[in-house]
């Protein structure tokens, strides 16, 4: 009779101790995430500060740029935007009809749908250097040279599974009652998909596009062999194109400290671009859903 409350008391104390310990652990891991992010941003910005001049983003490399002379990386900024926008559009054009098909034309437990999802997941897991090698082979077979077009197609392949699965996940959350409501008004599958389902997932779609855009912007391995590099602005699909990750890579390889600083400045610019896209994704995701059914 007497031991019972005592042991309960001890158990309670032990539970509280455990709770406190885990609380600390979670606090530490959460702070580590913040610390890493600030550290990366801080170091990159600090290292790049001497090189961060307005000419970095307004000029292309001049003569002797890689030896420390005047110039900027406008070629890589514009090139990265060109190749990523093109690749994302291309991936979207391929992914969207496929995902709509999975979610409104096939039935929910369709074996086909599961197989396609499995394949997309596998594609997602393939490292982008493999896509780069594949794109390179494709290029050789088609007798193409390293160009904006070849890089765009390869990058689109990298982005495709990311885009498709992200949109797919948001579409799967659309309640079947919503589709039934449209069906029962006599809407065809196509009308249901484009006028009801797409509207419902619109914020998720925008977020998925921006995530794919961010991923494409930072990917170096897929464009290494396929996009080439150039110091000039790219004005044609068949010209080689400069990209920011490769700009960082080449400049960091330089023995000149001024050029290395510029590599960090390029990294800072790339990071800021991706940061802007992530923030835009958050903002748009929150504000586009006016009509969404919760």
């Amino acid at each position: 009779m007497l031991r019972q409350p005592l042991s309960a008391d001890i158990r309670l104390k032990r539970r509280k101790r455990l709770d406190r310990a885990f609380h600390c652990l979670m606090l530490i891991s959460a702070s580590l995430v913040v610390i890493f992010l600030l550290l990366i941003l801080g170091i990159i910005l600090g290292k790049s500060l001497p090189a961060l001049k307005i000419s970095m983003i307004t000029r292309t490399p001049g003569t002797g740029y890689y030896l420390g002379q005047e110039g900027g990386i406008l070629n890589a900024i514009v090139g990265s935007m060109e190749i990523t926008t093109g690749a994302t559009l291309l991936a979207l054009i391929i992914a969207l009809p496929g995902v709509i098909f999975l979610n409104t034309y096939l039935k929910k437990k369709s074996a086909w749908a599961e197989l396609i999802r499995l394949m997309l997941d596998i594609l997602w897991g393939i490292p982008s250097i493999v896509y780069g090698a594949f794109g390179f082979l494709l290029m050789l077979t088609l007798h193409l040279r390293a160009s904006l077009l070849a890089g765009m197609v390869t990058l689109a392949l990298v982005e495709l599974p990311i885009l498709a699965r992200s949109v797919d996940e948001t579409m799967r959350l659309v309640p079947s009652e919503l589709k039934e409501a449209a069906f029962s008004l006599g809407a065809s599958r196509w009308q249901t998909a484009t006028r009801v389902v797409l509207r419902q997932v619109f914020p998720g779609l925008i977020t998925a596009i921006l995530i794919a855009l961010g991923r494409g912007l930072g990917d170096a391995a897929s464009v290494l062999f396929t996009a080439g590099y150039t110091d000039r602005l790219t004005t044609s699909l068949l010209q080689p194109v400069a990209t920011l990750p490769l700009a960082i890579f080449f400049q960091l390889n330089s023995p000149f400290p001024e050029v290395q600083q510029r590599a960090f400045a390029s990294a800072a610019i790339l990071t800021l671009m991706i940061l802007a896209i992530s923030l835009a994704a958050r903002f748009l995701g929150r504000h586009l859903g006016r009509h969404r059914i919760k």
Partner: protein
Amino acid sequence: MVDHGRISLKGVNVFYGKNQVLKDISLNIPAHSITVIIGPSGCGKTTLLKCFNRLLDEVEEARVEGEILFDGQNIYAPEVDVTQVRKRMGLLSQKPQVLPMSIYENVAFGPRIHGLQNKKKIDHVVEKYLRLAGLWDEVKARLSEPASRLSIGQQQRLCLARGLAVEPEILLCDEPTSALDPQSSRNVEAQLLRLKENYTIVLVTHILRQARRLADYVAFLYLGELIEFGPASEVLTSPQDPRTRAYITGEIS
């Protein structure tokens, strides 16, 4: 039994996989009246309703046998266009499911997908059916607001207006008041009683009092079988089958 119906079922069987949920249902549903389907939960009421507008087509492993004649035409015949069948039958579901668009667009959706483009005509249609559903006065000042901001009772009447706007001949109602408060329920019931002048209404409910208030005809389903069908006054007051009697007196539920 009343014959000469707009919808008649002949030997309808429904299976989910190997599981038979509706057994040999034959039934004539009279036009311009309210036919109420009652029965304990899981007896196949909703399944029966979903047979009518072929929503079962969307359900995995669901299989329908037999014939459902609508004005003499079998709606399960291979040459029948399912969207045309559904256009002729409005559905009011248990939980109102508004579309992710404005109040106005919700009502305009049906007419638009069936080809109406003239803005003035659509305006007219939207107002007409919002009035018919008894919602116009409450929403006329905020037609462009998201439909999801309406109260749940208003949403159900919006769904009614939306369904009516495709000009169906039949209204299928699946426990349309089960998610609503008493005031909104009365409101929806009042609309249904007014609408039966021009529409054939099939209503599924598990509320016997609601059946008494609304029904012209009553069908009692039990374990997937049609036990009894007839005028409401007969079925609800002097049922022939002991199972119907047991359900109505509350012995089985």
